[in-house]
């Protein structure tokens, strides 16, 4: 007996007939789930008094091998799958939902794309984004460079939304001299649903991938309406809501622009793509900690976390503070040449260590102010800087990939407030 078989269960004089479904993770142990002829799934408790027999063994209908269209008059965009639900398929026979497993499935998830350009699809890996590691970012960076240096107009990376901002920020530091846009996108509602945000996100990502931007960006819904997407600078964007489709927000800066079927509207400056070849600098020193300070967190706890680390980023309170008790520990780190970078858990706003005495003491202890960098972006940057730059402090204070904004205007048109 296997999933998909038509079976009959006789139990207490009643007969249930239906197709055997996969066992649900939360289903009871002795429960069999069948799909009745009317389409409904029901769970039936079975014991040794039940009689079960297979009426008809399941045979998968052979699907036609799809063909990916190609039009030589159109530009080509590379579509790289890394996981996530942007291309999910439902198998109505078994009810299973699975993500695109082949390049064809990925490319054909939104067939309208082919009206815009040719798609060269590739599944790089299939992972939940929370399972990705810095090694995967390096793999992505090399693949992007390979594609861009191989006559692609741009690259779209389909990614799970949970850590999309991490991956995209990492690629921002690793990829130099971009000769085409690198666009991260995903979906907050999986694409097996008619209401999915995947279609709009993917279409708009391809539009951006065809543009003249020479940066790594995130393209996701700008509101909960299906009207268009914001183009976020990868080093400034953060997932700020667990479920809304407009969860991605540019923090401490405006998005680069807005995109929909009418094209792209830019809000400000951006780096244009170059003519040359993309260079990859994928090296990272992964031995860096990101420490979230909270009241009562002891100096000992801090020391345990940062022991043997090559770099530390702290998400401190307000303008960039931690308990004064920590200062001797921090001083010891910096004396050993281990950089300690301060960011703010407020996320919005800039670190300033000159205002209060604790800040001034931290500065004296050798802490590097992280300006208005997001804590996790500062952490990624420090990993990259440690592996690629000689003067760490100088590099951390310098704007390398748009991660630091010099000024923030009073009125921000595109800031979001979910509260």
């Amino acid at each position, binding site marked *: 007996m296997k999933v998909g078989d038509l079976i009959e269960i006789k139990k207490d004089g009643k007969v249930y007939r239906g197709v055997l479904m996969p066992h649900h993770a939360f289903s009871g142990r002795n*429960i069999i789930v069948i799909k009745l002829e009317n389409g409904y799934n029901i769970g039936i408790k079975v014991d040794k008094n039940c009689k079960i027999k297979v009426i008809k063994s399941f045979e998968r209908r052979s699907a036609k091998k799809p063909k990916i269209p190609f039009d030589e008059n159109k530009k080509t965009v590379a579509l790289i799958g890394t996981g996530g639900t942007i291309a999910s398929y439902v198998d109505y026979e078994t009810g299973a939902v699975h993500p695109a497993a082949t390049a064809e499935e990925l490319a054909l998830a939104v067939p309208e794309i082919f009206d815009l350009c040719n798609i060269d699809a590739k599944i790089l890996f299939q992972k939940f984004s929370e399972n990705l590691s810095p090694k995967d970012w390096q793999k992505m960076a090399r693949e992007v460079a390979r594609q861009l240096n191989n006559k692609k107009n741009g690259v779209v990376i389909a990614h799970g939304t949970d850590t999309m901002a991490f991956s995209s920020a990492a690629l921002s530091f690793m990829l130099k001299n971009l000769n085409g846009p690198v666009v991260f996108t995903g979906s907050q509602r999986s694409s097996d649903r008619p209401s999915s945000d995947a279609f709009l996100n993917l279409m708009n990502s391809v539009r951006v991938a065809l543009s003249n931007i020479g940066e790594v960006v995130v393209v996701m819904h700008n509101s909960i309406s299906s009207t268009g997407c914001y183009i976020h600078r990868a080093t400034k964007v953060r997932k700020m809501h667990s479920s809304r489709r407009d969860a991605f927000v540019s923090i401490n800066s405006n998005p680069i622009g807005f995109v929909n079927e009418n094209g792209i509207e830019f809000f400000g400056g951006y780096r244009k793509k170059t003519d040359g070849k993309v260079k990859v600098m994928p090296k990272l020193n992964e031995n860096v900690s990101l420490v979230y300070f909270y009241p009562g967190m002891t100096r000992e706890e801090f020391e345990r976390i940062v022991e043997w680390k090559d770099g530390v980023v702290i998400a401190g309170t307000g303008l960039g503070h931690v308990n004064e008790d920590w200062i001797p520990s921090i001083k010891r780190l910096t004396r050993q040449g281990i950089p300690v970078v301060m960011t703010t858990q407020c996320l919005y706003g800039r670190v300033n260590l000159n205002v209060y005495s604790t800040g001034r003491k931290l500065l004296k202890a050798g802490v590097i102010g992280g300006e208005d960098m997001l804590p996790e972006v500062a952490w990624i940057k420090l990993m990259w800087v440690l592996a690629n730059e000689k003067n760490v402090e100088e590099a951390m204070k310098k704007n390398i990939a748009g991660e630091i904004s010099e000024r923030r205007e009073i009125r921000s048109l595109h800031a979001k407030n979910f509260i």
Partner: protein
Amino acid sequence: MTEIDYKKLGFKAGLEIHQQLATHKLFCKCPSELKEKGEKAFERFLRPTQSELGEVDRAALEEARRGKKFVYFSSSSSCLVEADEEPPHEANEEAVDIALTVALLLKADIVDEIHFMRKIVIDGSNTTGFQRTALIALNGEINGVKIETICLEEDAARKIGENGRKVEYALDRLGIPLIEIATSPDISSPSQAKEIAEKIGLILRATNKVKRGIGTIRQDLNVSIKEGNRIEIKGVQELNDIPKILENEVKRQIELIEVKKELEKRKIGEIREEIKDLSHIFEKTGSKLIKNLMKKGGVFGVKLPKFNGIIKGIKYKEHRIGKEFAMYAKIEGGGIIHSDELPNYGISIEEVKKIREELKCNEMDAFVISAGKREVAIKSLKAVVRRAREAIKGVPKEVRKALPNCFTEYMRPMPTAARMYPETDVPPIRIDKRRIERLLKNLPELPDAKIRRIAEYGISMEEAKQLVYTGKDEEFEKFAKKYKGYEKVISRILLNIMGEMEKEGYDVSIVIKRMDEILEGLSKKKFAKEALDKLLRYLAKNDVSLDVAIRECNVGFLEEEKIRDIIRKIVMERIEFIKERKEKAVSGLMGIAMKELRGKADGALVNKILKEELEKFIFQ
């Protein structure tokens, strides 16, 4: 017209009843309350998903692209869940309990584990593009009719407007828990259908956990006869309409079968979609209708071979196939005129003749014309041809909409089996023995038992039944317990007086609100029960105190002294009569006294005073 023999026709009908539950929404904590339209919240498109690998349905996709834009309005009755911006929470356990209780009352087999499904719906009525629904129980029974399925599902958003490509929905109704009860098509007559619907309604109400009022219960019917086909009728609002709607549907199917037979007899061949421009015939037409429509485009026509005399109806003219043609055309946006109704609308015999010549119609053939915008007229005529082709085969399977006059109109073709897949965001619910035992212990009183119990208050079985059937039993009991000795009066107010008032257009909710006050006044003998008709109507219209109403209606009880004065006067005026009859005069005089005092004095009191006065007189 002879009675229809439903048995002989092979009549079969089934019911699908949707009832809203009186608890918060199924997958969030929002109240299940309809609000004002609310504020515009967001706009969306829905898109058919790709089900099978590689099979890209370009047509469906194209349709969706040209598809509708959905605009949603939100109020305090909706949250991020309804907006499809937050995953559903675990299913409302109270709603599950209510559904299980109904399943127990209908003696159905409850599943061991409930699995919610996503049923694809892309008309915008569900923000997700699917309706969440779960099968709770199978194989129930009521009055000998099988209940096939009992489901628990979420109600759809409320459509509040449509304007071209834009459809507007209010989110307040979306997510309200619904029980869906579907019978097998075992129902053998229209009257039985009503009876079963009524019984199911009573059982639902017996739980005390269902919503009451307009729109909270919806009935769909499916019906077929032997030579006909299965038809689904949506949106029946009134139980009392069910028999008439079914009778009409049967007649409509008989008419269509007659059409089929007649066409066979006439040896109908192919119906061609040859639409011709007939504008030149109408250049100097006397028909104002055609003249006006022609300005927008022209007049177009198509031949319907062998249809002459059939379109206007064979057996049941009110169910003529012409009406079906018209509805098909209407959906495409056009109007039609057919040859069976001509000459008419100012179209002359000459013009009819010319059309016949132009379309090469012989005397057996009919034609249909449509005037106005070219594309619309042509699309409308094509739809008519499509429908005429179906007529050769008999009754097409379709979904129809119930109209207030108990007729139905074509809505859409019968949908193919709904596409369903598991709702993975909602965990399955294990139904264990302990839960069922708890529900069995608290099972509500069934309607028949309730009727018997209510009758014990000293009203007739018939009254008790009516109180239960109309859902007024709760109010009756509440007041009957409080005002002992007034049970019959209370029943009369609830059933008769309020019933009449409702028909007359009064707002009877005011009566219910002031019931305590009214019964209090009655028990304190402020007025006679005979005055209720007048008094309640007055109170329903005027927001005044009971005392003022009694005064204005002039129904207040007179003081004893005044009653005595009137009775004395009656006695004095009939001295001769009393002399003759002595004590036996009481009954005669009572009639005269009551005529004068009805509504102003209690009968028993009048009788007492009358006797006293008579005695006084006789002893004198």
